[in-house]
C-alpha cells in the first residue's frame, strides 16, 4: 500500500486490497455503488462514488458533516434518486439508467438518526409494522424474537415516548431488522444518545448486528464510533471516498493528510530521505521504520505522520538548545497533550500521563519512540493550513 500519490480515480480496486481479500470479483458484494453522483440544485454533493459492501460486514461511512455520507445512505435506501451511476443490491440494479426501485421494493432496513419510531404505535406494533406478509401467529413470534434479541422482552406494550433513548434505539433496530432486509442502513445511530449511553450502545448494536448476521452500512462523523463498530471504515470528504479499509489499517496508514487528520490527532514532522535513514529535526529515523518508502523518493523531502503517543517532550539538558518550546497544553483527563513548536516552525503534539510534568517555559527535547511503522506524505502536497486537526 503506497500513499496519497495513489490516484483517487482508481477507487474501485481499493476495497479488495483490504480485509477479506475479495475472492471473486464477479459475485461482487451485497451492495455495490458504481460511479454514483447526486446534486441538489447546482450543488454537487457526490461526484463519482463507487464502493462495495461484502456479505455480513459492517461498513461505516465516516466523514465531516456535509461530506455526502447521509446522501449516500439515502441513495442506497431509495429515499433519493441519484443523478447518475448505478446502485446494485445482491447483483440487481435498483437504480441506474431508467431503473429506480422505490424504497419499499428494495428490502433495505433503515435506522434513522432520531429513530423515527411511529409515536402512535407501541414498541411491538412498531416492530410488526414491516411484517405485513406474515400471519398473525408468525408475526407475534417474530416480534417476540426481536424484542428478545434487543433485550426488551418486557417493553413490547410501551409507546415510544415511554421508552428511554437507548430503548428507543433498540426498538428502531428491531423494527428495521424485522423484515430481514438484504442490508441495514444506520444514519448517525448514536448521535441522539447521551455520551455514556453511546459507548454502551455501540457494543450492544454491534453484538445485535453480528447476531442477526446482517450486512450493514452505517454513517457517522465520530471516528471513535466508526472504529469501534465497523469491520471496515470508508472515510469520505467532500463527496469523495478518501480511503476504505479496516479500522487499524486506516488509522495507522492513512492514504491522505485528510484521513490522517480526521482520525485522531496528527502532527507532521518534516524530513529528508538520505540513504538508509530519514533526517529530521529530531534526529535520524531508520528507513525501515517508515512504511512503504519507495526508492523513487530518495533524496526528496517528506512529512512523517506523528501521533501524540509517538513522541514525548523532556526538559533540555544543561546548555542544550533542545528541539523547541512548549506553546500550549490541553488537559484530556488522564493524559495531557503538550503542543511543542519546533525550532523549524512546525508543531507536534506530545502525549504524557497526567502525573508527568513538562516545563512550559524554556526549551524541551522531543523523543520519537514509535513501536510501529510510521506513515508519510511527500512534502510538496503539504497544504497551506496548519497541521493539526481533531
Amino acid at each position: 500500500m503506497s500513499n496519497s500519490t495513489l490516484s483517487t480515480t482508481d477507487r474501485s480496486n481499493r476495497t479488495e486490497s483490504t480485509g477479506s481479500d475479495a475472492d471473486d470479483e464477479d459475485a461482487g458484494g451485497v451492495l455495490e455503488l458504481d460511479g454514483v453522483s447526486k446534486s441538489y440544485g447546482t450543488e454537487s454533493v457526490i461526484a463519482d462514488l463507487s464502493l462495495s459492501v461484502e456479505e455480513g460486514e459492517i461498513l461505516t461511512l465516516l466523514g465531516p458533516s456535509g461530506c455526502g455520507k447521509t446522501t449516500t445512505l439515502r441513495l442506497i435506501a431509495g429515499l433519493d434518486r441519484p443523478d447518475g451511476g448505478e446502485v446494485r443490491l445482491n447483483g440487481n440494479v435498483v437504480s441506474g439508467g431508467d431503473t429506480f426501485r422505490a424504497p419499499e421494493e428494495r428490502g433495505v432496513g433503515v435506522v434513522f438518526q432520531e429513530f423515527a419510531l411511529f409515536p402512535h404505535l407501541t414498541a411491538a406494533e412498531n416492530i410488526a409494522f414491516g411484517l405485513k406478509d406474515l400471519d398473525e401467529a408468525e408475526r407475534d413470534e417474530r416480534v417476540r424474537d426481536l424484542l428478545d434479541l434487543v433485550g426488551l422482552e418486557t417493553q413490547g406494550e410501551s409507546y415510544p415516548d415511554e421508552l428511554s433513548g437507548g430503548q428507543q434505539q433498540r426498538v428502531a433496530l428491531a423494527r428495521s431488522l424485522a423484515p430481514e432486509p438484504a442490508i441495514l442502513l444506520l444514519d448517525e445511530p448514536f448521535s441522539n444518545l447521551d455520551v455514556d449511553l453511546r459507548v454502551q450502545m455501540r457494543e450492544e448494536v454491534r453484538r445485535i448486528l453480528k447476531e442477526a448476521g446482517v450486512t450493514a452500512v452505517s454513517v457517522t462523523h465520530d471516528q471513535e464510533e466508526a472504529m469501534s463498530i465497523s469491520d471496515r471504515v470508508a472515510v469520505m470528504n467532500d463527496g469523495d471516498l478518501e480511503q476504505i479499509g479496516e479500522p487499524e489499517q486506516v488509522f495507522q496508514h492513512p492514504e491522505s493528510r485528510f484521513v490522517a487528520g480526521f482520525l485522531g490527532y496528527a502532527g507532521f514532522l518534516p524530513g529528508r530521505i538520505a540513504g538508509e535513514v530519514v533526517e529530521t529535526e529530531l534526529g535520524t529515523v531508520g528507513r525501515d521504520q517508515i512504511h512503504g518508502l519507495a526508492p523513487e523518493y530518495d533524496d526528496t523531502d517528506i512529512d512523517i505522520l506523528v501521533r501524540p503517543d509517538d513522541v514525548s517532550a523532556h526538559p533540555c539538558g544543561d546548555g542544550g538548545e533542545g528541539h523547541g518550546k512548549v506553546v500550549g497544553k490541553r488537559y484530556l483527563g488522564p493524559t495531557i497533550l503538550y503542543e511543542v513548536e519546533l525550532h523549524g516552525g512546525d508543531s507536534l503534539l506530545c502525549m504524557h500521563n497526567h502525573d508527568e510534568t513538562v516545563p512550559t517555559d524554556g526549551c524541551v527535547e522531543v523523543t520519537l519512540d514509535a513501536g510501529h511503522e510510521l506513515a508519510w506524505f511527500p512534502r510538496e502536497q503539504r497544504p497551506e493550513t496548519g497541521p493539526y486537526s481533531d
Partner: protein
Amino acid sequence: MATEQQTGTGGGDDEQPLGLTVASGAVAAAVVVPLLWLVKTALEVGFAEALSLVTRPTTVEVFLNSAVLVTLVTAACIGLGVPLAYLTVRTDLPFRRFWTVVVSLPLVIPSYIGAFAFVSAFGPRGAFQRLLAPLGVESLPEIYGLPGAVLVLTLYTYPYVFITTRAALKSMDTTLIDAARTLNHTRWESFKRVTVPQIRPAVAAGSLLTALYVLSDFGTPAIMKFDAFTRVIYVEFGTFGRDTATLLSLQLIAVTLLILTLESKIRGDERTTTGGRSGSPMPLGRWKYPALGFAALVATVALLVPLGILFTWLAQGVAATSQSLAFQPEYAFNSVLVAAATAGAATLAGLPVAYLAARHPSRLSSVFERATYVGYAVPGVVLGLALVYFGSSYATPIYQTLYLLVFAYIIRFLPQAIGSLRASFLRVDPALPEAARTLGETPSGAFRHVTLPLVAPGLFGGAALVFLTTMKELPATLLLRPSGFSTLVTHIWTAYEQGYFGQAVVPAFILLFVSGLSMLVIITQEGYDVK
C-alpha cells in the same frame, strides 16, 4: 434523516408531485375567482361614474366613519389589553390565573350579541332605564352611533391585544429588565426602553387582529346604526345600489390592505428574544386594589351585561310574540347542517394545499397557500356580495342554494383548516413516512398508516374550528341564504330587526355555547396556557 443538504423536505423525489400541485392550485383558484369577479364588476361601472360615486360626500363620510371607528377601538383595545396583560403576567395581582381566564372570555361573545345586549340594556328605553325609572330618569343618553359601536367593539376585541401581549410578556427574558435596572434605569424607564420594544411586535399583531375585525364587523355597526363600510354596503345592496355597494367593497378591501401594510411597518424588525427565565413578579403595593378594580370592571361590563340581559329575557319568558318568530329546532338543525358541510368540505379542500405547503415548500406552493388566505382578510359582507354577483351571473344553478352558501363559508374559513393541518403536517417528522417506505409501504400506504393517524388531531381540531366559526357567521349568511332557510344567526337577526329581542334568547345562548367551544378548541390546539 436530517440530510445536510436537504433539510425539511420529505418525499423521495425532488420534484413537485403533479397531482397534489394541480389539486392545490384548483383550490386556490376556486377561492380567488369570486373576488376577482368583484373587481370585474367594479370596472364595468365606468370611470367617470365611479369617480363621482367615490367622491360624493356620503362615501367620504363612510370612509371617515370607518377610519375613526377603527382608530378609536384599536387605541382603546391597546389601552385595555396591554395593562391587563402586564398585570396578569408581571405583577403580584391576586388570583392572576382567574383574571387571565376572565378577561380573555369576552372573545367568546360574538360582537353582534354583545351589541344587541348593550342596545337593549342601555338604549334610551332599555332595561337599565326601566330600572332607573322610579328615580325619575326619563331616558338615558343615546348609545346608538359612534359611542356604542366603539364601546361594544372594544369590549369584545381587546382580548386579541391582551392575548398576544401576554404571550410576548411571558416569553420575554426578564433578566433583560434586571440588566436595565443594574444600568441605572428605574422600573418605568426600563419598561419604556426594554419591555416596550420587546412586546411591540406582539401588540402590533394583536392590534392588527382588532383593526381587521372592526373593519369587517357587520353586526355591531348595523345594530348601533353607525354608518361604517359594512353597514352601508349591506343597505345599498338591499336598496339596489349595486354599483355603490361594489365600489364601497373595493374601498373596504383597499383599507384592509392598508392596515396590513401599516402593521408590518410598525412591527419593525423582530429582534426579540424568547425563552429565558422569568424573575419574581413586581409588587403592586397600594396599587393592588385599583388594579383589581380595573380588571373586575372590564370583566363585569363585558361579560355580566350581556349575560344579565339574556337571563332577564329568559326569566321573562317568551310571551307576547307573534307565532312566526317562535324559535324552531329546525333553525339549530340548519345551522349544524351548513356548518358540518363546511367543516368537511374545507378540510378536504385544505388537505392538498396544507400538505404541499408543508412537505414540498416552493414558491408555487406558498402562492397557493397564501391565495387561500385572501378570503380570510375579506370582510364577510364583501365576500357575500361578490358571491351574489358571481352566483347570479355565472353560477345560476347553485345561486340561491345551500351550495353557494357553503362555498362562501369555505372561502371565508378555509385558512383555519389549512393553518391547523399545515402545522400538524410540519410536526410529523419526515423520517416517519420514509421509515414506513423502507418497511415496505407504498407512498399512499405510508400516508394512510403513518402520516394520517398522526395529523388526525390537527385535522379534527381544524374542522371543529371551521364548524364553530361557520355557525356564528352573520353577513354572508344574510346575503346568500336561500329564501325560507333560517339558521340560529338569521333568527337572531330577524328578532332584532322586528324588535322582538326576547325571541333571540334561545339561539343567543346556543351561539354563546358554540363560541365557548370554539375558544376551547383554539386553546387546546395552540396550547394557550393561563398560568
